[in-house]
């Protein structure tokens, strides 16, 4: 594996391998000295065109735990602010010969494009409403630790599917690991064609929620909405909020964060023993360490570097042979 661009192009074997690797890093995390020298001397660039707390901080910490040098660039205050194109920004950053570029961008396919412009491994940390593969992997990791396996589990993804890259990546990742996924939300926030395209069940009310082993609530993405998709947050909450009345005692609750308290989740379930939200954040670190490790230490990564003085450089015109 050279890049992690999406769950769509992952095989189950690759995913399992990443998760197993993450388990071994979880063991490292319990030591007093949590740092390993694996990526010493290698440079990792983290390029965020959108705001992020947990993804950017956990990738950065993951890279540091692996002893890599990290350069973090936020769109605000960088040349991007001055109108530099993505292609030119990548050309500039590639000059530092990074081993990996972690990119979050508001447009679908940004990471795919970057992968075509650089020799570095590219990690998609969220591209528009398209994919967020590291989130889906950490969610699978969290569930696997709790349940042993996802095979045959029923997972309901509830809320604003239309604007959610997490929903798309999770839908594919849960399916890849053998779970049955149901998408539930207001009809205006379920993309047309998603059931046909993915084989997921689609429903517009929570009536059947009792069948779910796991309830994955999505964040209402006000920031991606330029218009009203639901009449009011009040009506949304009345129909779709996961509260202690709707969440059964044996069901697990997940949320990618940050939570809109009182909108998609009632405060009492966030802090309940069924909630895996804190564990998701913890998993984020080890899963992202595993991603960096797998991409950067794979066997195909050894790149001999021939500089201008290297022995087999062809003679230049006019140069004495």
């Amino acid at each position, binding site marked *: 594996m050279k890049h992690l661009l999406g769950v769509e192009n992952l095989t189950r074997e690759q995913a399992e391998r990443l998760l197993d690797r993450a388990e071994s890093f979880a063991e490292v995390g319990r030591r007093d000295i949590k740092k390993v020298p694996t990526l010493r001397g290698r440079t990792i660039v983290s390029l965020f065109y959108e705001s992020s707390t947990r993804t950017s901080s956990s990738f950065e910490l993951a890279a540091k735990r692996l002893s890599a040098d990290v350069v973090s660039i936020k769109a605000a205050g960088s040349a991007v602010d001055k109108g530099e*194109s993505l292609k030119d920004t990548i050309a500039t950053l590639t000059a530092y010969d990074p081993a990996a570029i972690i990119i979050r961008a508001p447009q679908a396919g940004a990471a795919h*494009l970057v992968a075509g412009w650089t020799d570095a491994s590219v990690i998609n940390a969220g591209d528009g409403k398209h994919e967020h593969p590291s989130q889906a992997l950490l969610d699978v990791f969290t569930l696997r630790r709790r349940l042993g396996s996802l095979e045959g589990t029923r997972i309901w993804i509830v809320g604003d599917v239309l604007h959610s890259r997490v929903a798309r990546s999770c839908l594919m990742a849960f399916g890849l690991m053998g779970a049955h996924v149901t998408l539930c939300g207001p009809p205006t926030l379920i993309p047309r064609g998603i059931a046909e395209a993915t084989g997921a069940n689609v429903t517009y009310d929570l009536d059947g929620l009792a069948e779910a082993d796991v309830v994955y609530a999505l964040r209402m993405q006000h920031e991606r909405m330029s218009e009203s998709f639901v009449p009011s947050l009040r009506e949304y909450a009345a129909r779709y909020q996961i509260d202690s009345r709707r969440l059964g005692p044996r069901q697990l609750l997940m949320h990618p964060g940050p939570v809109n308290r009182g909108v998609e989740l009632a405060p009492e379930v966030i802090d309940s023993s069924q909630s895996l939200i804190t564990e998701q954040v913890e998993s984020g670190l080890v899963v992202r360490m595993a991603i960096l490790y797998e991409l950067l230490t794979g066997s195909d990564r050894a790149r001999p570097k021939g500089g201008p003085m290297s022995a087999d450089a062809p003679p230049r015109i006019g140069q004495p042979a």
Partner: protein
Amino acid sequence: MTAPAPQNGPSWLLHRPGDPAQVLIRGARVLDPRSDLDATRDVLVRAGEVAEIGESGSVEAPERAEVVEAEGMMLAPAFVDPHVHFRVPGHEHEEDLETGTRAAAAGGYCAVIAMANTEPPVDSAAVLGSVRDKALTEASVPVGFVANVTQGMAGRELTEMAELREAGAIGFSDDGLPIRSARVLRRALQYQRLAGGVIALHEEDPELSAAGVMHEGEVSAVLGLTGVPAVSESTMIARDCSLALYERARIHIQHLSARASVEEIARAKAAEVQVTCEASPHHLTLTDEEVRSLDSRFKMNPPLRTEDDRQALIEGLREGTIDCVATDHAPHAPEEKEVPFEQAAMGVTGLEQAFAVLHTDLVLPGVISMELLVRRMTQGGESFGIPAPRIAPGEPANMALIDLEHEWEVGAGGYESRSPNSCFAGRTLTGRVMMTVAGGQVAFRQRSFAIGAAG
């Protein structure tokens, strides 16, 4: 090609005057559906006109005529494209009349109609005059220019349509944008009785398509891209056909992309609305599956739709619901396409590959006949008053000589167009235009194509 001009009026099509063609094309299969001709013939062009058509080997080459040995090739009337963007004035770094008509000639076209969504747009006689003047020195293929329907393409006030028509506007269009207001379009349709000229319409309801970047369906659902539903096109077509019927006006619907749109046109034609329409080579051969790659070369407006929509377009082409093929040749600079899909400019080039794409994907597999393809590629001017060219004695020479077996890779030898944004780049196609005679002049010869002199 000659165009019927009103008494003492302007010519609708303009190009750079040059030496009239003197050429004998020997032994080609001559296919002209309108002359009921499909046979091996010698065709002599003298002084830019078809002078003689005879049995193979029977026509003598006059002195100083070029002789083309064309055995095994097809000679057809050259194509007419009612929908191209030549970016003049304002975006000459993407295309100008010289490069645009070179692309047209390389694709076998003898006439093209340039849209008016330039910078500034062609909404005044002054701008129209300037581009028409340029065509007289730069265009190797005759070009007609539409003028805008509304001032500044803002969709509010009509342009001075009567004056623009007298100044040579071949028709009217705000292409690139729909005419959002039914009231404004209705006024334009009424005013057509005075000004003349067909009104060509880009159909899209911005209320439904706003912010959309691809077809709304299974692929957009997975990619998380905002979709443009097919109904954003078909509902506007229904509205505008109703208006045209009410005002007894003539309209031409541009770039159909959806089954629902074909069905609206079929209904309108049955109700005797004076409506014609076009479909593009990319909508006839590609679907939204291509967008899975998130390659911005597959971003255009209207978007590529589903296989069902594509089949409906092919059926419409076959049955005549769709009158003609139009490329919607839309050149864009590389920096407008080397960006994430959602940010990329909409549009693809098409003139150089149109015939080869449709020949490879529709004619060779037996989906449509060669005769039908030639018909639909040659009658794009009819809605604008430009009859389809013919290969018949006394007719001005407008013909394309095509090697139907020649395989070539799109883009491998570069493009005649100034812009490289072809959605067929890298594909190997079968069938290549070897020579184009447009408006009585030789406009294009394939570089590798040997010619001989009489003698």
